[in-house]
């Protein structure tokens, strides 16, 4: 083997380094794209988001009733696609959360109202996670995120293993007793596709709920996120929900 003269070796190294530097400058590294945190609704249209204004919710549970009617959710008090929790935070920091029959039966009167520091209603539903734990754990690909950002269940393909139910950090899934498959809030996908709002939004008497297109800069949900201080549930889980709450208390789980 021929020996490489020092001069040639230096020349070779320098030119290789220069070429690499020029290539990196010319095309911003393609792998960096993977870590680019641009919200997907900049590229995809439409992209559905949801907003809840806790300061407007009166706990009437019309949404719970409408959801059960629209989506054939069993009427028994433990199957819900959406439900409304009541939080009662006492002055001595005791916290009580209740949702009798998801809110459908009304809420019992609060005992000793003078000791209540604050109390409010929190409607719960699918959080529309951008990186959904439920989708990740499904062994057969029966639950998935659509191109417009909605997490759906393929009821014909679901094997009923219940992994997704225990994976959802928000407890928004249940096991359908008749169909024997997992079921969850679909943000009334069949209605959105027909240009309608979800059943819960339709019947909400105070406008506490809204559904809209995040890719549209003028949509109700985009404006709701811009004009208010909004928060998601369990941000520490890294699920990046597209359901945002206005007026969310730190005690809400």
């Amino acid at each position: 083997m021929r020996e490489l003269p020092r001069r040639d070796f230096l020349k070779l190294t320098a030119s290789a380094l220069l070429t690499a530097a020029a290539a990196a400058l010319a095309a911003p590294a393609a792998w960096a794209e993977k870590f680019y945190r641009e919200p997907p609704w900049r590229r995809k249209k439409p992209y559905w988001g949801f907003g809840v204004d806790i300061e407007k919710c009166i706990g009437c549970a019309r949404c719970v009733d409408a959801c059960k009617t629209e989506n054939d959710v069993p009427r028994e008090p433990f199957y819900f696609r959406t439900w409304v929790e009541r939080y009662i935070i006492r002055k001595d920091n005791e916290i009580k959360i209740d949702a009798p029959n998801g809110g459908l039966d009304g809420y019992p009167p609060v005992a000793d109202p003078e000791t209540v520091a604050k109390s409010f209603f929190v409607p719960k539903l699918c959080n529309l996670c951008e990186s959904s734990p439920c989708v990740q754990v499904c062994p057969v690909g029966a639950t998935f995120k659509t191109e417009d950002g909605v997490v759906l269940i393929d009821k014909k393909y679901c094997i009923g293993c219940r992994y997704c139910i225990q994976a959802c950090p928000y407890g928004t899934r249940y096991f359908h007793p008749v169909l024997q498959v997992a079921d969850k809030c679909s943000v009334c996908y069949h209605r959105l596709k027909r240009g309608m709002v979800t059943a819960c939004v339709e019947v909400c008497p105070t406008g506490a709920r809204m559904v809209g297109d995040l890719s549209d800069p003028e949509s109700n949900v985009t404006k709701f996120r811009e004009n208010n201080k909004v928060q998601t549930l369990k941000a520490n889980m890294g699920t990046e929900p597209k359901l945002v709450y206005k007026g969310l208390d730190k005690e809400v789980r």
Partner: protein
Amino acid sequence: MKDIEHLLRVAVIFLASITVFLVVRAVVKPESYGKIGRYRAEALDDSKALPVRYAGQKECGPCHKAQVKEKAGSSHSGVSCESCHGALAAHVAAPKGAKPAKPAEAEMRRFCLRCHEASVSKPAKFPVQDGTKHNPDMACGMCHKPHAPKI
């Protein structure tokens, strides 16, 4: 030859397993699986085809002009018709067939107070009444018209 015989045996087992896997996969995999993402593309059509039960506010106006107009000018303007009258897509499809629900007079107090009962949990600005003190024996509709409740 003897030296590589055991390697060949392993290679045959591997090839056979891969073939079995590919055959099973071709048989079991639904046709539309993977067309868009890691799911059956047909599942989207299934979800889209589900029936609609709530018709939406704009369907009511063409027939019930007076009621919709009365409500639009009242404090109940933000309450959609189906919020109180129930799901009405069937009624829109066949107006004579499916009739809208209407809270009966005896039921009215319970129904109205479901929203308007006083509670520490409700927003401060929301109009509420203590049902046990506010004319407990009368139906709400005797004074407040549901479509324009302010007296």
